[in-house]
């Protein structure tokens, strides 16, 4: 028991240190295998946007806040793209139960995002997502520079401020 306790104290300390370094440790999008909506195999490390920012959002058809977030962005996505060239990549973590409903939902809502299926959570795990919605911001060099868990109406405004900063070449 004692040893376990020490293990955990040590780990908590390490986590604390890691948080301290969090913003400095620039990480690229990890490699994981997902599927396109026509079920082709796709490697996530190849996600790119010609040196412009990328938003990666994890969602599911059964997750209300996730759909609210992506629908809210959809309303302004054209403006965002015109002004900053940002690309939104939506990763559905729906499993076999709902996976076949993802494409009809995406089309039904008229989303213009790049949508991928992650039915066994391989990419979700690689990105250390605990629960959805979870949104990441990737800079022009492919580094993950920001993330946000959960969604409240209005969060997309903060996200867009950060996207604009990135597209102007500023650090966030």
């Amino acid at each position, binding site marked *: *028991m004692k*040893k*376990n*306790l020490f*293990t*955990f104290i*040590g*780990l908590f300390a*390490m*986590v604390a240190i*890691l*948080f301290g*370094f*969090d913003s*400095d*440790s620039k*990480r690229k999008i*990890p*490699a994981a295998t997902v599927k396109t*909506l*026509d*079920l*082709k*195999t796709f490697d996530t490390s190849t996600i790119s946007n010609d040196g412009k920012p990328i938003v990666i959002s994890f969602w599911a058809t*059964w*997750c*209300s806040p996730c759909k609210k977030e992506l629908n809210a962005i959809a309303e302004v996505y054209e403006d965002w793209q015109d002004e900053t060239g940002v690309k939104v990549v939506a990763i559905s973590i729906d*499993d*076999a*139960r*709902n*996976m*076949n*409903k993802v*494409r*009809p*939902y*995406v*089309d*039904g*809502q*008229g989303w213009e995002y790049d949508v991928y299926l992650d*039915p*066994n*959570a391989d990419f979700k*795990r*690689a990105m*250390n*997502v*605990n*629960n959805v919605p979870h949104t990441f911001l990737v800079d022009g060099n492919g580094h993950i520079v920001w*993330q*946000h*868990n*959960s969604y*409240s*109406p*209005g969060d997309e*405004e*903060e996200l867009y401020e950060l996207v604009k900063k990135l597209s102007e070449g500023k650090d966030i």
Partner: protein
Amino acid sequence: MVLKHHIYNYIAGISLSLVCLGAFGQENAPPAPDLGQLHGNFEITAQYYNEDSLIGAPDFPERVGANAFLNLIYVKGNFESGVRFESYEPVLQGYPTNFEGSGVGLRYARYRKDELDITAGHFYEQFGSGLILRTYEERALGVDNAIDGIRVKYKPFRGVYLTGLMGKQRFRFENRVQNGDGRVRGFDAELNINELIPSLAESRTQMTVGGSFVSKFQADRDPLLVLPENVSSYGGRFSLTRGKFSFLGEYAYKINDPSADNNFIFKDGQAVFVSGSYSKKGLGITLAAKTIDNMSFRSDRSETVNNLTINYLPALTRQHTYNLAATLYPYATQPTGEVGYQADLIYKIPKKTYFGGRYGTTVSINYSGVNSLDTTQIPENNVSDSLKTLQGYTTNFFSLGSQTFFKDFNIEVTRKLSKKTKITASYVNFVFNNDVVKLSPNKGTFFTDIAILDVTYKIRPKHTLRVEAQHLWINSVPTKVDSTNLNVLSEGELGETISAERDNGDWAAAIVEYTFSPHWIVSVIDQYNYNNNNKDLRIHYVTGSVVYVNKGTRIMLSYGRQRAGVFCVGGVCRNVPASNGLTLSLTSSF
């Protein structure tokens, strides 16, 4: 040995971490060698329990329960390694009971180069839609059937994806992960026709075909029956998309596999899943059907609930999100046999039209039904042919049985009324055969109507108020039971009819939620069982919670009563007992 094993895991994890800390330390120094990167996530849920005899929450002498997880993944070039520390000191009430203590719950090393991908240790894998193999983690439910062994993925040729694996499955946790008894071996091949044949690369028609084989081994220690020690299964799948259409079909077969799930019959199993969809901008239609016959597949034939499952058979029904619809009567697949079908439509009525309104209106309609499989029992007293008796039943595989297990019709309309106000109105109708699903101790088939209204009002930028009102009405039909053992009888059999019980009666629920983007969410939920048959149980289940979010970190504090019920994530559910107390939860990704 056990201790040694544990220490190795521990040392591996720590040394990985140290390597990484070294890397951070080098940050401002002159160009240093790439020491890789460490990242991960953390989660803790802790609850302080009050005794609440009214709702059936027992006295919990330890007062506090907590589940915690720390995942660390280290990546350097082609090499990756991961470890997960878990802690259940003690495990939360209602979580599966086979979790105790603290230690390493998962560890693996992975090497990827060009077309090769090798994993040693724990891994999660899915063949096709999972009809014969899916290992996955659903932490909120305590489901984790990771395979501990070796997995090799290889792409010998463009468009050809091969996977082979072997190992034992994660079963329980007692200061370290412990594997189940049986061995799992599997192989999967997937061909992408368009990648394979270059002239089809740009074709409008995209096709993949796949095939898999999975077998399990478990020694036969049964004193009476001669059980198959090796149980093999295989499956094939096909997908096609062309423009707005897509089609998916999958078939699986399993040889006889007597188990606790199927009452030790020696019958083989089969499953078919087909799904088609049509979608264009503003419209999506999905049709799907599924048949399952004796397809429960575990690496230990004596296990039940969510333990040691090899395959994944989610319900072909809508996954509801609103509280009363999602948690009171959720349907779970009957792996011994069922036939299900579902139709789903989403349509966006264009904005600035008569029906669409100024901002457009989204309408979703969904219908699903699950029936029994049409089977004929083989009489048990068939002494002349005991082998036949052990088959249990015969069936016409694709034919719908007469018994309704579940039906769900639901419609949801979402409309933005003004710049500030958005509403969602929803109606849900269930037919829930509790004699089959056995969710509640009451007998009969329940008929429920649920109405939901969800209004979101933007007070000012970043400040939003959301109010939800829900109501559930319930009725049930009488059931005929055998008066001696109270087993439910089917039509035509003689027995005693017991009066209809309306299960727990009607419910009303309300949620008020105030969000202040991007950091704060404050909410209160009240579920009121105002019409329970037992007047003493007409109580309010009120919970208040405050959530603070900062980037990848989320902290939630909540206090109140939680009713006993079914808690589902994804397609899997577990029962949670009633509880009363204070809950703290923290999740963080880094």
